[in-house]
């Protein structure tokens, strides 16, 4: 009788605990850094600063939800900053001209439309999504400047502010939106058939196709979701600041991709989680916030963020070899 067996029980344990170990490591890093920043700057450990960190993180998290789907499916979207700006500017103009509901719908449709276009061009023309989304980043950003006539769009609408910029008790609505969307995105990715197909497509597109999964449709949908997330983030940005500008969220795509990668999502696809992305975004925010309180400017923040990204990916690569965690 021929039987097969696992040759390395340690590998199995690593496999079962690895994902949770990775997340625990991120939580540990956040706690450790918070401890260091609290010791060096007492202002760090206050409710006001905590809410500030979460608020700063919320938009990165919302953008990161879509990006997590995209990267797990082995694609990438670097257009989200431009799409977010165009969505916000378009929404702002329509809110002022027509009303908050119409403005929100337009903002979401602009985001979804760009996401769908990214997906369709990537798949139908066989162009790498990195190249396609570099192009649409420029198109969306340029269109945002044209549509706004290079002026900030001030939005004063009580209903819109309540929905996207108000508070529920002491908690900013922005945080509740991010939390709610993260729960939905996390459950959909982890528990639904579509979520499983996103993982499978990124893990092995060939195996997925041989198994009858429409990998083209999966990739188009993940890129569409990233566009939709950019549209939602645009609305949240208006809610937070009461204005939309064409140059808003410039460079935010790199912070979002960093959060997703630090959170454990593999750039090669097939691995990752929404919880990891949230923790990755929080880690970046804690570093940025702590450095700011210590008097270090954005240059230092960028430098440290770069080091953290490289360290996170290097450690995970060792994990892939079975020698870490």
């Amino acid at each position, binding site marked *: *009788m*021929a*039987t*097969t*067996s*696992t*040759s*390395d029980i340690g*590998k*199995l344990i690593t*496999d*079962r605990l690895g994902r949770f170990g990775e997340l625990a490591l991120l939580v540990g890093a956040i706690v450790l850094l918070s401890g260091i920043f609290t010791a060096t700057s007492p202002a760090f450990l206050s409710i006001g600063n905590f809410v500030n960190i979460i608020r700063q993180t919320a938009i990165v998290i919302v953008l990161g939800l879509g990006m997590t789907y995209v990267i797990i499916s082995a694609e990438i979207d670097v257009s989200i900053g431009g799409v977010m700006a165009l969505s916000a500017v378009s929404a702002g103009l329509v809110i002022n001209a027509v009303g908050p509901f119409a403005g929100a719908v337009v903002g979401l449709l602009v985001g979804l439309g760009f996401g769908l276009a990214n997906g369709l061009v990537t798949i139908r023309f066989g162009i790498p999504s990195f190249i396609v989304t570099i192009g649409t980043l420029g198109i969306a950003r340029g269109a945002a400047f044209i549509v706004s006539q290079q002026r900030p769009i001030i939005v004063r609408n009580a209903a819109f502010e309540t929905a996207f910029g108000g508070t529920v008790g002491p908690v900013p609505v922005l945080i509740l939106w991010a939390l709610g969307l993260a729960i939905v995105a996390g459950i959909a990715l982890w*528990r*639904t*058939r*579509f979520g*499983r*197909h996103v*993982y*499978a497509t990124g*893990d*092995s597109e*060939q*195996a*997925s*196709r*041989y*198994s*009858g*999964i429409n990998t083209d449709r999966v990739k188009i949908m993940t890129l569409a979701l990233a566009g939709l997330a950019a549209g939602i983030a645009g609305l949240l940005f208006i809610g937070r600041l009461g204005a939309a500008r064409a140059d808003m969220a410039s460079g935010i795509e790199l912070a979002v991709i960093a959060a997703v990668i630090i959170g454990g999502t593999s750039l090669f696809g*097939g*691995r990752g989680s929404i919880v990891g992305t949230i923790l990755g975004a929080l880690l970046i925010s804690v570093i940025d916030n702590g450095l700011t309180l210590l008097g270090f400017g954005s240059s230092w923040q960028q430098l440290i963020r770069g080091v953290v990204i490289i360290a996170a990916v290097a450690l995970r690569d060792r994990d892939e070899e079975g020698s870490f965690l």
Partner: protein
Amino acid sequence: MSAVIELDHISKQFGQVQALEDVSFGIEENEVLALVGDNGAGKSTLIKIISGVLQQTSGTIYIRGEETEIGDYNDAEARGIETVYQDLAIAPNRTVAQNIFLGNEILESGPLGKLLRFVDDEQMEREASELLSRLELTLDPGSAVKNFSGGEQQSVAIARALQSDPDIVILDEPTSALSLDATQRVLDLIKRLNEQDVTIIFISHKLSEAMDAADEVTDGAYADGFLEAVSEWRPA
């Protein structure tokens, strides 16, 4: 006894290139048929036609005597044809159970689960475990496939093909990337499948492997080339 599947004068052209010419053969219920031929003989083209990846230029496919067009993968699956490809078509970071049910996930039975299309991991692991036991494979259904050896991974791919209880399983050079030991394990698995009344088309360019695995090896296949050999073979 009628053939489960019968290919009648199948030809395939890619532009000016004649990849298959007038190929006819059939396989009966619970039989293991080995098709042997050198690289470039047209084995993979033939398999892709049967599994719906390619369509023939001319000729007819009969399934249980009925003329059939196999338009794509889903068509083939709906007609009870499953294929295991030579290049270990598995998702390495997914678990054994998730690979076995890839593209065919079991959904939760409750109304909410059905509405939201939630997958039922426990049921999939249970059914995967039963399937693996039936094949005498001691693999943990909850472990990622990347943790296993090449032979074990190929066994997962074969188990996946059997998950939908197909009429025919096509194994396209399932041992080409494997060590000698792993190859023997896969051949043993093929024999066990045959004992369990699974109908198998086994593709190989190694005559010894084919003879080890199959009830019937197409006559003179290795010497004369695959195309000629399958043209000569007809079901009784």
